[in-house]
């Protein structure tokens, strides 16, 4: 993937407003294929919104996003809404997303949770989806649980299934919206381990997190967001050892 000259994600002058209030202002950054990037910042700084803009769960108000060659821009939304929706739909199919509250489908078993999207969206056969689903459950260490329903497993297990479910669509990019915030401390590690494994396999991952230790240990680099703006983008060690910006310094002091 690294031979691809273009960065996997290019964000240019992204802005997002809720009514009058600006949530994101003029955000620009690139992420290369295979990177593991952490987005950190205080609560309400807009980091989750930024993540949700990347797979069009939120519609950007200004700027453009280009992911894996698919271009989404505020201009396009104005000119050709149908085209915009089509591209957003296409984009979401190649991006996996993991939520803080898991959002597993409670009326389906774990295996069915994973099989659903490939069968519905890709019209993949039940047999193939099933085989693939079992492989993925095995990958996150839950193969024996395939018949269970989401209500009968722990939070950490749910999040691992959620990751497996996202992987079933063969995404080129994984987004995590505070994946460990709702978990008991002893379950955090099992989820982070899955993400580490994915990083080793070369998956591009963007994580909004409060796990500073993980961000520091595993990330290729860190984006620090505050007040809807990118304050600092830097190599992980650099930001933790010698943050350039005063605001970053203050934030990290509270967390570390």
């Amino acid at each position, binding site marked *: 993937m690294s031979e691809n000259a273009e960065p996997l994600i290019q964000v240019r002058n992204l802005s997002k407003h809720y009514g009058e209030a600006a949530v994101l202002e003029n955000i620009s950054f690139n992420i290369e294929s295979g990177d593991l990037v952490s987005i950190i910042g205080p609560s309400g700084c807009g980091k989750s919104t930024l993540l949700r803009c990347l*797979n069009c*769960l939120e519609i950007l108000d200004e700027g453009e996003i280009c992911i894996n060659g698919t271009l989404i821009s505020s201009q396009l939304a104005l000119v050709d809404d149908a085209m915009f929706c089509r591209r957003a*739909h296409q984009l*979401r*199919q*190649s*991006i*996996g*997303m993991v*939520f803080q*509250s898991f*959002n*597993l*489908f*409670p*009326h389906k078993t774990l295996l069915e949770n994973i099989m*659903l*999207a490939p069968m*519905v*969206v890709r019209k993949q056969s039940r047999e193939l989806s099933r085989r693939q689903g079992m492989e993925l459950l095995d990958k996150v*260490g*839950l193969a*024996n*649980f395939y018949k269970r*329903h989401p*209500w*009968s*497993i*722990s939070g950490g297990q749910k999040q691992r299934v*959620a990751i497996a*479910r*996202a992987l079933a*669509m063969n995404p080129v990019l994984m987004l995590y919206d505070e994946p460990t915030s709702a978990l008991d401390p002893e379950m955090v590690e099992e989820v982070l381990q899955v993400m580490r494994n994915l990083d080793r396999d070369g998956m591009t991952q963007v994580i909004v997190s409060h796990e500073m230790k993980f961000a520091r240990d595993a990330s290729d680099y860190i984006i620090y967001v505050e007040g809807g703006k990118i304050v600092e983008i830097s190599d992980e060690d650099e930001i933790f050892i010698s943050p350039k910006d005063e605001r970053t310094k203050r934030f990290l002091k509270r967390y570390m």
Partner: protein
Amino acid sequence: MKRFLFFILILFGSSTYGDELRWAADTESGAPSVFYDGNSQLAGFEKEIIEEVCKELDKAPIFYQNDWAWLIPGLDHGLYDAIVEGLFRSEENKDAVLFSIPYYACPLSLLVREGDEEIKSLEHCRKKKVGVLCCSRPRIVLKEYEDIEVFEYPNEHGALSDVKNGRLDAALLDYPAAMYSTIALKGLKIVNNFDSVEYLMAVRKGNYALIGEINGALLKLIQNGKVQIIVSKWGLTNPLFDAYIAKMVGGSGADARDTFEREQSSSKFQKYVKLLPIFAKAALVTLEVSICGMIVAVALGLVLVLVKLYSPRWIRFIVTVAVEIIRGTPLIVQLFFIFYGLPFVGITLQPLVAGIVALGINYAAYESENFRAGLEAVPSGQMEAARALGMSQWQSLRYVVIPQAFCFVLPPLTNDFIAIIKESSLVSLITIVELTKTYTTVASSSFDFFIPGIIVAVLYLALGLPFVRLAKLAEKYLALEKSAYRAKRIPKKSHINAQ
């Protein structure tokens, strides 16, 4: 669904013309005009006369049940071709339909309680309460007596039982109904016969061909004495009838009246057993209307709520207004509008279809609100997760949100199904013979509202209960919340083993 459409098609297709004469009457008016006898067979002297007419015209008689008050509107909208139900010419209806020549004539009869020696004629009824059938000849006669308190009843039985139990002092009915009710309902007597009324058949305005045919047939039947035979067989001959018919064939025995008399005195138990098949048939109609109505309601309700939640603002507005109109008007008004109103704009529905459509639309409005509550009870994260997996909005709804919403919706849905079974009784007003209609018909022709009432109540319960049980089972099976409790009972050991 396919089967349901097919069923609808059959209903639409069933209105064939040609060599049949579709005639209507209200069986609720009881013996001897047109009624269901002890064997649940259609009987009555008017039924026999129209069948003779049909024989003359070489047409097959097809019977349609309709409420007395709605006989003429039904004729107007082409539900049937003729009315044979003691119709007489009056100021109100003389321009509404085409009348045939009379096939029967009789006086009006004043009925009082046996043992009442005070009332001998209408003159004695001043300042007293007298019951009549609505839109009947007696009703018109009584208009001239301002100081008689008049009560209108939809059928003879109501008036007669009220005379018997003392709510009324007297009842004024046509001679045949009066005479037969003294046989069936012991304790009443006829004190006076006066005035006159002539029974005519009616066809749609402008249908001169048919009225010509009927008049020709009637004339022939009177000339060859067949009408007289029928009338005398039912014991209905009277001086007025004799006067009307020049050539009179006297009948010695009033066979039909004797049969009716025998039936009334036969064992009650046997009578009720004989009623069961007719009630069973009616229960099936009730079930059919209810189930089809509910299918329409659920399907349409789902469409309404999806439009309401996921469509452009202006469409949403229209749907919201429509739902409010449907929820805010009585079902009975909607029913009459669909059945008798829509033909004015060229949409004529078969009774069963109209009933199902009215119930379906009415309940769809409620179901859409049920569904909205159900859909909104599903956490928004579910829709987001589905969209994030690349599903379209419809796919997300179809595979993720709606199945979960269904669990929330099932209990109120069951409620509404029970309600629709009961409310389906309203379709009896548009000529459908279902449980309630059968009850009033059977009760008023046998003058017994008690046991048939219990039979009908039991049948309604029997229709509803299986669905309550079924819904309970489905709830248990589907419930997401409850299953969380179940989860706690699973031993933790299995977790450890699995890992």
